[in-house]
């Protein structure tokens, strides 16, 4: 059965719904930016986007190719520096960090550095970028990524960005800010939160047409499942129209046929 939207569009729409108005959100390249732009055009017009390279509170006119290109400080409140933005983060001004990832484990630890051994890499990935900074310093981290058994793994090859590390209390013990950490994970199959007590990832919602079994087949660690698993609301025609109307969004979501 073909749907009137693709998986990337679904992920962008679902992610946008988690972003609150009147909050500060730090975004990574690609889908996170696009979802934040969508949220601003829907329910969160007063949400302020911070970009790591120094763009603060822009009216992003088109999908930026880089988190530092000129679109990230178009009609901004301030064009400043990475030191300024990251110092604000360390001080507690980031409500949300919105990141992508290549591998994740049950505690939300993320790998974007290397597949295989560090000194003998099977695939060399870009490294932390600003991800470790966002994941360390924001109050809440939202992760958006593709899910399969090689990506949802028992142990990530490299902890680039901290989730809850080895479990309850581990972030604070390492010296990371109290009360911070992963909040939601969004994939093409479902939505996850983190169990308050164990800090382990928990399935809370499956997307239309996806079963809990599908999710399990695509997860290589022991996943918690909420008592009541919701079905994700489909993207509305309005969400899709606005998403597709964002200048150059096609680079991420594909061109309309």
């Amino acid at each position, binding site marked *: 059965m073909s749907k009137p939207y693709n998986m990337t569009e679904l992920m962008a729409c679902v992610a946008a719904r988690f972003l609150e108005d009147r909050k500060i959100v730090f975004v990574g*390249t*690609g889908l996170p930016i696009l979802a934040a732009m969508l949220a601003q055009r829907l329910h969160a017009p007063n949400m302020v986007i911070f970009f*790591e*390279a*120094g*763009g603060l509170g822009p009216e992003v*006119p*088109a*999908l*930026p*190719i*880089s*988190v*530092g*290109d*000129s679109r*990230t*400080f178009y009609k901004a409140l301030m*064009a*400043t*520096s*990475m*030191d300024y933005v*990251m110092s604000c*983060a*360390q001080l507690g001004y980031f409500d949300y960090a919105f990141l992508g990832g290549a591998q994740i484990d049950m505690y939300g630890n993320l790998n974007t*550095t290397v597949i295989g051994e*560090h000194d*003998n*890499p099977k*695939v*060399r*990935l*870009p*490294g*932390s*970028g*600003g*991800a*470790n*900074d966002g994941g*360390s*310093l924001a109050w809440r981290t939202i992760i958006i990524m593709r899910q399969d058994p090689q990506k949802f793994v028992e142990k990530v090859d*490299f*902890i*680039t*960005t*901290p989730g809850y*590390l080895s479990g309850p209390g*581990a*972030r604070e*013990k*390492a*010296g*990371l800010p109290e009360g911070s950490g992963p909040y939601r994970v969004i994939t093409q199959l479902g939505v996850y939160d983190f169990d308050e007590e164990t800090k382990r990832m928990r399935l809370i919602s499956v997307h239309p047409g996806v079963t809990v079994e599908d999710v399990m087949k695509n997860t290589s660690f022991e996943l918690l499942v909420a008592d009541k698993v919701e079905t994700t609301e489909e993207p509305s025609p309005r969400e899709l129209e606005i998403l597709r109307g964002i*200048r*150059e969004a*096609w*680079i*991420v979501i594909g061109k309309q046929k």
Partner: protein
Amino acid sequence: MKVLEEGKGELLAWMDHDEARRWVRENKRRDMVDKTMDLKEAVSKFVHDGCYLAMGGFGHIRISMAAIYEMIRQRKRHIILAGKTAVHDVDILVASGVVDKLEVAYCFGHELRGLSPASRRMVEEGKAKVVSEWSNAGFQWRFKAAAMGLPFIPTRVMLGTDTFRWSSAKVVEDPFSGKPICLLPACYPDVVFMHVHRCDVYGNCQIDGIIIEDYELARAAKRLIVTTEEIIPNEEIRREPWRTVIPYFLVDAVVEIPYGSHPCNMPYMYYFDEEHIAEWLELSRTPEGVDQYFEKYVYSVDSFEEYLEKIGGLKKLNYLKKLEQLRAPLKAPWTEKKKKK
């Protein structure tokens, strides 16, 4: 202070803070002199094989590409790169064989365009070595420590992760709060290239838009070469002194190179040349293609003006200006290639 944990990465570009002061005293001129020179001279004078290099800007934003091409043309070798946030700059520098050792916060990727075929291949084949890992904030705070003349700076990033374990940072018990805190070692690059919107002949520089980490990096640099879109009279600097981001005494050479950031973005002037970058991403899938690209755009070209003709001349440059002003649709041929994969 009790050291709780030490990263195993190689400590590079660090100096004792008194040594740093001595270096400044003996090597940085206090008098305002005309520092203009041509790029060939600047690169041969300040870039030495084996030196530690950092590029200003943000990997493909406000990058001194003209200087990168000149380093390739002069066949510089065994350069160590600060992969602070490195994108097109590192890809080209590693692929051409100029850089073979790196500290990495972000490298081997082209952000929205995907991974970088050439530099990734060099790392995966062991031809370029990653000797430490950092986060973006962590790397630029290393420059801040250097800019302040301090041996290290404390931070709350990188804690608890492999990014820390592969860095040359240390975790200590903070003597005030008693909590673990990460100490980032200062980083003093031997040579830094920065591309700016305008400066005077002495090196007083203005940058439009975000500063990224150039405010700190300019002070951390042992040698700073500024390439500029335009040279302006000193009176213009003095008329609006609050716009000066880099003062003359940090600068060792000034080179005027209009469009010197192509194919990268120069805020308020020109956007990315995505057609050119797509050509590079396609050719760089094979070592032969890499050679072909450098032959076409670097080795067979004698000046940056000649390069600008090769990439499409005035017509292309006008299009990039329109793109920057959001008055033309973006062409990004790499989107097609990405889908085919």
